[in-house]
């Protein structure tokens, strides 16, 4: 019974953390655009949180740079279980145009496990919304 309530509340109100792992800002402004009136992801109960300790879902953008790699792992560890990761944009999926640059790990899944990939350079806010909804569907 308690488990069902927990699952229901998690589904109805996922709190997200927006993490920039070396992105070019394009996906970041699209993530923020998804929170603003036109797309309004908040009507699905999604709330942007500032600290990883409050978050359920990490929305990460960008290829992982070498310097931020350790910080990403630390942030992932700080997030309480169960945690989910959405990789937004082509860079977070595979490195995109930065593939081959010396400071790039190439994709978020090289560093932390990823649940949902949202393609696009940058991903449209509608696509990000779709990714969030698909993640909620798997819970």
């Amino acid at each position, binding site marked *: 019974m308690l488990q069902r309530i927990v699952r229901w509340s998690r589904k109805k109100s996922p709190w997200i953390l*927006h*993490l*920039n*792992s*070396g*992105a*070019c*800002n*394009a*996906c*970041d*402004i*699209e993530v*923020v*655009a998804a929170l*603003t*009136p*036109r797309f309004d992801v908040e009507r699905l109960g999604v709330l942007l949180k*500032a*600290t*990883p300790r409050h978050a359920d879902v990490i929305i990460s953008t*960008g*290829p992982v*740079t070498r*310097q*931020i790699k*350790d*910080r990403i792992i630390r*942030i992932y560890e700080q997030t309480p279980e169960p945690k989910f990761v959405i990789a937004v944009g082509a860079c977070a999926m595979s*490195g*995109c*145009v*930065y*593939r*081959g*640059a*010396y*400071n*790039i790990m*190439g994709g978020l899944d090289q560093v932390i496990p990823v649940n949902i990939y949202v393609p696009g*350079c*940058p991903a*449209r806010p509608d696509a990000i919304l779709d990714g969030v909804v698909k993640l909620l569907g798997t819970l």
Partner: protein
Amino acid sequence: MKFTVPIGPQHPALKEPISLRMTLEGEVIRDADIRLGYNHRGLEKLAEEKTWLQNIYVTERICGICSHSHATCYTQGVEKLMEIEPPKRGIYLRFLVAELERVHSHLLWLGVAGHEAGFDTFFMYTWRDREVVMDILEMVSGNRVHYAINTLGGVRRDIDDLQKKKILDSLDFLRRRSEFYFKIGANEPSFVARIAGVGRLSKEDALALCAVGPTARASDISQDVRKDDPYGMYAEVPFEVATATSCDVLGRVVVRVKELMQSYNIIEFLLKNLPDGPVAVRAPRRAKPNEVVSRYEAPRGENIHYIKSNGTDKPERLKVRAPTLANYPATVVMLRNGFIADIPLIFAAIDPCICCAERAVVLVDGRSGEEKIVLMSELRKQAHERWKKAPLKKDAVWPF
């Protein structure tokens, strides 16, 4: 007692990874230290491996907010190297997108400033209106953020009369909204009280520390590359350089709203005087050995690209000086003697674009906090040592 507070790289107030170290006395900031490199991707090196045309794609991805600025700055420079002149219609369309980008960037920034000042309604308003600009940009270029409209020798897409009419209609709406933002100070005294007098940067300091863009213009320096060193068709476009005299965050808000109005006028002028003809000319594959410096007034300030060619179809060197980097020294002065609660506001007021600025190599040992400057020869020696010890990777694949 002095106390050092680390802020970032992942911090609620900063949307992008950057690390600030504040030395505090009580609640007053005595000194600030900015640590960079979290967003360093090595784009300048990457650009040397790609052809002139492929590099438009790469330079566009230096930054998502000012993507057109970097791409245009680069394209301008390469066109000079290749000695080709884009047709007039192409130039007009290129800077039509540039001004639309300025509008979207300033609306975005106004929202962020409102958000940092605790005025979230303002944030939601400006971002709602920004979607109108994004729709225009999507209609003109096909993309919302990375427009990909530049090509060597012009632009890739043309616009028709219906699109022209749609843009002019949207402009009316945007003008009305911007006038509302301009008057918001009269209706919202608490917002003005929050941002007035915060992050003071005197005219002398701004000059001495080489501040650029709206940060300099808010300190009463009339400096704008579009006016001082006109590129493209800016010599024939009537517009004024917006300045403010209050030298604080309030001044930076006012300058940006004024610039919005100027941008609407420029867009209207460009659409009404759009010449006929082709939008692009054919560009050669190679450029003669030469070097060029290209200047461009990005939404955040002066953007400089240095490009060197060696006769092949790839650049020998591409160096980018983004406006945010030029504004860092001024930020440290703005932060000094301010309050800790003002940090996000002051920092947001230069409109930092971390991903623009992060290509310079700085050696910081993040784990021990140790910082050292290494000679190039020493670095090379270390690299050789490491390379000798590295195991041979037999199954390694070239990542292209």
